[in-house]
């Protein structure tokens, strides 16, 4: 019972949303950047990549 409570508490903790987990394969992407250049994750192999999602251009952060 205590364990169940803990599990549900973790699942529904405020603001906690599912994300990809450490160790999972990063989904490939093939997108244009702000200068119209093509960027593919596959081409960045061998380099560590920080992928920063933001809600909307020109909002704080």
């Amino acid at each position, binding site marked *: 019972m205590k364990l169940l409570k803990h599990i549900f508490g973790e699942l529904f903790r405020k603001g906690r949303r599912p994300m990809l987990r450490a160790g999972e394969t990063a989904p490939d992407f093939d997108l244009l950047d*702000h200068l119209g250049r093509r*960027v593919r994750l596959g081409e960045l192999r061998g380099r560590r990549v920080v992928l920063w999602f933001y809600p909307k251009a020109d909002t704080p952060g």
Partner: protein
Amino acid sequence: MLGISCDSVEENRAFAEKFGFEFPLLCDTTRATSIAYKALDHAEESYPRRFTYVISPEGRIETAIDTQDPAAQAGELLKRL
């Protein structure tokens, strides 16, 4: 470092110029990448969440950070890198 949102090339170009970002801002106009990375639940959702992922040189997720606070997001990231 790659930024990513569902904005158009033009919107992101204006954003990058305004703040002088020196890294690419990716334009996920189909929303497929945001959904694949769970920043969006579905294509009709308005805006992706403030998620940051560190991807290893081998192409695996190394670190996943979820925060609504941009300053905290940067701080968290620096701590973990």
